[in-house]
């Protein structure tokens, strides 16, 4: 379509020509198709990089991730198509000066209100999943997790069991399947991060703060964990594992590892550390090569 040099017609206010039909048709094409594909596929959305995980809340988080990703993909594709279309279609063809459109109020209102509505929907979905995740039911097994430079300590107050290990010793937190695990997480020195990818979850271990959360594992197995918050020299090596076992195996394991003296001594050390916050293993060597 050739463009002729136009002169602004005096009587017309400079509103943009309504390009709504074209935009709307394009929009329908690009939204209808993926949505139809979605419906036809029997509602199995792509994973978008995340897994269902192995706790009850990890599944809800996974679904939330999928729906957020569907939204992001649709909006992203829509906007990208607009950009690519504009770049290709409106390439300069001569020395013409195009119509000097400055605004189009209805369109601007639409692309203010529609994103706002999307935000409300995203927030509502977020709140539903979040309320599930932060719930702390009362029937549970208690585990205290203590992060320190550069390892983890898992203690089971009801059973006088304690497991501790540093860096590549990779201490293992044993928990029973299909049970509410009530975790109290703290640190005795700097901030650490308790992160298990297969639980779609992480939480900071803060000195002086008892972070409380509940996990309910749904599968047995061994799941890898790492510290995610920078905590000094061996931050990269602060590994741990979570081993989910059957409930009877868990009882046996507790009985086998019960050690009142060790538990009390360990608790005493932790309490001491918490009150003085002196890291026990810090040697101060800089520049380890």
């Amino acid at each position: 379509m050739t463009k002729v040099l136009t002169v602004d017609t005096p009587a017309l206010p400079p509103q943009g020509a309504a390009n709504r039909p074209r935009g709307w048709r394009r929009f329908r094409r690009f939204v209808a198709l993926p949505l139809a594909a979605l419906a036809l596929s029997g509602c199995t959305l792509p994973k978008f990089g995340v897994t269902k995980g192995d706790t009850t809340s990890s599944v809800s988080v996974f679904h939330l991730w999928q729906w957020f990703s569907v939204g992001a993909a649709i909006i992203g594709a829509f906007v990208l198509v607009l950009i690519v279309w504009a770049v290709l279609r409106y390439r300069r063809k001569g020395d013409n000066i195009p119509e000097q459109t400055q605004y189009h109020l209805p369109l601007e209102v639409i692309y203010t209100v529609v994103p706002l509505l999307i935000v409300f929907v995203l927030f509502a979905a977020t709140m539903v999943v979040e309320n599930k995740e932060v719930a702390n039911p009362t029937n549970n097994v208690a585990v205290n997790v203590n992060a320190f430079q550069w390892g983890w300590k898992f203690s089971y107050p009801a059973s006088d069991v304690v497991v501790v290990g540093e860096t590549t010793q990779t201490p293992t937190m044993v928990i029973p399947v299909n049970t509410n695990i009530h975790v109290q997480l703290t640190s005795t020195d700097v901030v650490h991060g308790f992160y298990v990818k297969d639980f779609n979850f992480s939480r900071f271990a803060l000195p002086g703060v008892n972070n409380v959360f509940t996990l309910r594992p749904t599968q047995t197995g061994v799941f890898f964990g790492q510290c995610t918050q920078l905590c000094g020299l061996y931050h990269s090596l602060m590994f741990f594992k979570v081993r989910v076992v059957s409930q009877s195996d868990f009882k046996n394991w507790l009985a086998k590892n019960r050690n009142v003296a060790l538990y009390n001594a360990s608790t005493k050390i932790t309490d001491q550390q918490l009150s003085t916050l002196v890291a026990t293993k810090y040697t101060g060597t800089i520049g380890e090569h």
Partner: protein
Amino acid sequence: MTDVLDPVVHHGHDDAHDEHHGPTGILKWLTTTDHKIIGLSYTVTSVLMLVIGGLFAEIIRFQLASPDGHLVSLAQYNELFTMHGSVMIYLFAGPFAFGGLPNIIVPIQIGAPDMAFPRLNALSYWLYLTGCITMLSGFFTAGGAANFGWVAYAPLSNALNSPGAGADLWIGGLLLTGFSAIFTGVNLCATIFYLRAPGMTLFRMPVFTWNLLVTAILILLAFPVLTAGLIMLYCDRHFGTHIFSVQGGGVPVLWQNIFWFWGHPEVYILALPFFGIVTEVIPVFSRKPVFGYKGMVFATMTIAALSLGVWAHHMFTTGTVLLPFFSFMSLLIAVPTGIKIFNWIGTMWRGEIWFSTAMLMAIGFVVTFLIGGLTGIYLASPPLDFFTHDTYFVVAHFHSVVMALVLGGMAGLYYWGPKITGYILNETIGKIQFWLLFIGTQVFTFPMYLLGLYGMPRRMAVYPHNPEWQHLNEIATLGAIMIGLSTVAFVINVAYSWKKYPAGDNPWDGHTLEWFTTSPPPHHNFYRLPQIRSERPTWDYNHPEHRALEHGQHEETHA
């Protein structure tokens, strides 16, 4: 009644003193108060910081190309990513964004002879330069540079866990650059409030200047908080206070609250000027006015206002913050950002788009920022943030966004370079630079999104053996190499084009006031000024028959 578009001499003050005398050489540089020279110094210094930060990045990426890299030790790695982040954010992006191009361009865009407080402006630059030297000299101390991350969380940053001068030099460098920023904020506000030329009402200012005004207000709101926090950290380290340590009744997480109260507005302080650059480049190379000017201005103000209420979305995993409040506010910020993206598209729509390097960079900015912005929306949802926080997903998100800023910065340099220096940069080399930078950015960030989702935490010097992780890391390193090459291309371009292609006053048929004056502008910026009757005074002067009419106005018929 004079024809409204005749140029008229503006300045009543005595310009006969145009200096042909005065200090020369290095003394001229040390004593200058000319905003153009100060801004140019800022730009050169910040680009040098970009190169230094980039070198740190390349070392990091080479270390991470294999799971147990031996390029650097664990301790050195912690210094590397700390200084990479610190140099890039505190020493490159901020000063480039509000001290470099704005110093040069804002006064000219509003028809002012200089900034409101020229000597304060010069002081800002010296504080910035000495801040750079201070922070980087940590590398030359016995304990090495700061190594606690660019965010310096307490208690890791206290005297027990981070002894040594490197940490204190980091704090000192930030005190200097912090005051530099605050003084620039004051200067920008005063200049924009008081020194606009007649007819240049607030709502006729270019969007770049508007964004800088809002940035300046944000600087004044946020930077004092950081400065206060740094002083508190220094006191904890040296004067035996217990503000951030549990022993003695302090609260470590208070550091995070204070830091991020500054930290979130900071990322908008970084982003808004680059939004402004892009909002200047796209209209000119589409030969249309900005689409939705008032919407752009209100979106900018909304972003700034909201940005003061979202800081704890960086702290969702601490378990100590009010999740619903911060989640909602953070999701809300997507709306004005979306308005801006739609307005940029609307500007290009039905235009006559001309793909100069500046325009390519600007379009690259919009695409990359779209990706980074969309991934940010996930992070605004606490359940989704819980498992992506401190993983490579977050690293990918913010690198998408900051690489977009780099693209925008390059757009600004290619667009305004001719105005500032009088010479155009070579377009072919520029396009090579663009493709390396744009494609390199996507090759660099996309694997990191996946790495984060597959479980790789950030700030890891080594990682477990996992062929999938290693493969993705290798691709990310390749992307980083491409980005590095693009920077080399830029340096080559500057050297190759040195004084080669004279620009003339208005090589791009620009719209705003700076294109009316010479390239480079004279002392005190203008010999003559057109009448200012819209937000595109130069365009109106050059293309009177294509003026975008004010609402309700009708075009006067010319005899």
